[in-house]
């Protein structure tokens, strides 16, 4: 190792990145491949993996996709300045809406999921409307408390099946439909949100996070925009909840557990916050990992915690940021003058 006291590390974009970013008429297959590769390979890879794995691992893929969607929605909310610690709230509301519709009114499955998605988003937004003025950690704490309270409330009042929950809901026709449905939903959510947030309209959401008072000063009603962001984010979670309800044919208090709040955040922190694709990557690392560790019994959670701590401390920026830097930029040591 040479003495690097008089050197600094320089990072510049690869020239192929610069060319394919600005020039829209791409000049070669190489440049097209450069752009398409990071998007197509995961899509095809996950599809192949999902359809050819044994049944048990198919279920794992479904869970992973659900967590990935929750994480993407979390990241979307946080890039609108709404730090949420309670994805379980949105998830649980969606799940209970679908479950109740199916159980009490016998609505068929292809109607319950869309209705639960819209209604779940609507109910969550209305629930959180009084606290939409709160910022940062204070908003986060409200979202952390609400699902715990709803769960205890259902436990105490015995509505919607109380402790036992609602069982015997109508299932999906078969596992293939289930798999296709959730994978398609996940990619749709990811790419739609990425497109949305880089549009002119989506820019306002990011500006609210960066400086809300400056956004207000520009004559934009940030409360209405925050409510819209909340609706979009919670609708995605409610969809996951409704899906999970029909997948397991069950809804109950477990849908409000902290796990559904913590896993998406952990996935985002490991994958890289603010990229939308990072949380998805994080979910695809964390969930299968915890499944592999299952054979260690109770020790599994210990390993899991260890991985979390090591990842967060060693790569605070997240894996996705790291990978995209390696892919798009080159590094070299430059002598200081």
């Amino acid at each position, binding site marked *: 190792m040479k003495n690097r006291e008089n050197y600094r590390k320089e990072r510049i974009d690869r020239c192929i990145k610069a060319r394919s970013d600005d020039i829209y008429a791409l000049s070669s297959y190489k440049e097209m491949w450069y752009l398409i590769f990071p998007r197509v390979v995961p899509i095809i890879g996950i599809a192949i993996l999902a359809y050819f794995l044994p049944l048990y691992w198919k279920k794992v893929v479904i869970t992973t996709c659900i967590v990935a969607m929750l994480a993407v929605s979390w990241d979307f909310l946080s890039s609108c300045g709404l730090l949420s610690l309670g994805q379980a709230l949105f998830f649980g509301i969606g799940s209970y809406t679908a479950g109740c519709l199916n159980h009490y009114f016998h609505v068929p499955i292809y109607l319950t999921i869309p209705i639960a998605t819209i209604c779940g988003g609507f109910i969550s937004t209305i629930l959180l409307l009084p606290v939409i003025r*709160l910022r940062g950690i*204070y908003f986060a704490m409200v979202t952390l408390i609400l699902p715990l309270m709803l769960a*205890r409330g259902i436990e105490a009042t015995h509505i919607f099946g109380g402790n036992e929950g609602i069982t015997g809901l109508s299932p999906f026709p078969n596992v293939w439909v289930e798999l296709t449905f959730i994978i398609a939903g996940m990619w749709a959510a990811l790419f739609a949100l990425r497109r949305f947030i880089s549009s002119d309209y989506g820019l306002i959401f990011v500006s609210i996070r960066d400086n809300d*008072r400056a956004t207000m000063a520009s004559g934009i009603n940030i409360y209405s925009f925050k409510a819209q962001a909340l609706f979009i984010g919670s609708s995605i979670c409610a969809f996951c909840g409704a899906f999970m309800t029909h997948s397991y044919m069950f809804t109950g208090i477990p849908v409000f557990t902290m796990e559904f709040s913590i896993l998406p*955040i952990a996935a985002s922190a490991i994958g890289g916050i603010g990229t939308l694709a990072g949380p998805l990557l994080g979910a695809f690392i964390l969930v299968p990992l915890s499944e592999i560790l299952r054979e260690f019994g109770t020790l599994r959670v*210990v390993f899991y915690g260890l991985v*979390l*701590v090591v990842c*967060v401390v060693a790569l605070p920026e997240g894996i996705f940021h790291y990978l995209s830097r390696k892919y798009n930029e080159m590094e070299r040591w430059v002598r200081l003058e």
Partner: protein
Amino acid sequence: MFVYGLINSAVLALMALGFNLTFGISGVANFAYGAIYVVGGFITWVFINHLNLPYAVSAILTIVIIGIFGALVYRFIIKRIRGLVISEVIATFGISIILLELLRFIGLIGFKYSLPVFIDGSVEILGVYVDIQRLFIIGLVILVIISLYVFTHHTKTGLAFRGIAQEEHTSLSLGINPDRIASLSMGMGSALGAFAAIVILPLGTITVDSGYDVLINALSVCIVGGLGSTFGVIIASFIIGYAQTITAMYLAPHWTMIVSLFAILVILVIKPSGLLGHQKELEERV
């Protein structure tokens, strides 16, 4: 009911003080607090039952060990991700999971894991019988609060603590090392957690799950009282302590959790920084 409410409040205050100390000074929400509480109890238990040390010695040793452990956690883990709130929370929560589930894996579950009380027996106050241990808790809470007050207002290190809490950059320019003070505060917070464990745990058995309960209780008291305000913690623990006791008596025990959660929710909606929190109107809402 009056007496039991008072005791419940004192227990809550004792649980929350350590968490509050760390958060108020270094701004690190120590989610490993509940784990530290349980580990503190177990270390004392091991000292007493396997090394046959006298009770007082093992208690002091535990507090010192846990204090050093907390400082080391700050030094080697938190320091690297200071300022990234989400990473801090995930790292400390990860530590909490590691500690608690490791204890569960070793298999420390059962009634034999309990600490001895200081003095056995009970006395009658206002018509109800109260264990002397519970009276000890009330006395010790008052003692801890007074010594914390003296420490932060009349010693050099204590003043440095408050300096860091108020304005980190200015105190840096006055020759205070924020990292050293923050790791000290983390150590002291953890030591207080261990102290709380040693005092409170004789009332029941040591269980792994109580770690999570302690964390939730400490969090709720700190939120209602105002994060980082010691007197807010005292007032909040009285409010929540009495609210829990009253609901347990007149409604049903499983409503107690709802009451404390509802208290937090109301406080957050009306006055997010808590009853006695610092006024930061623009930072909490727009």
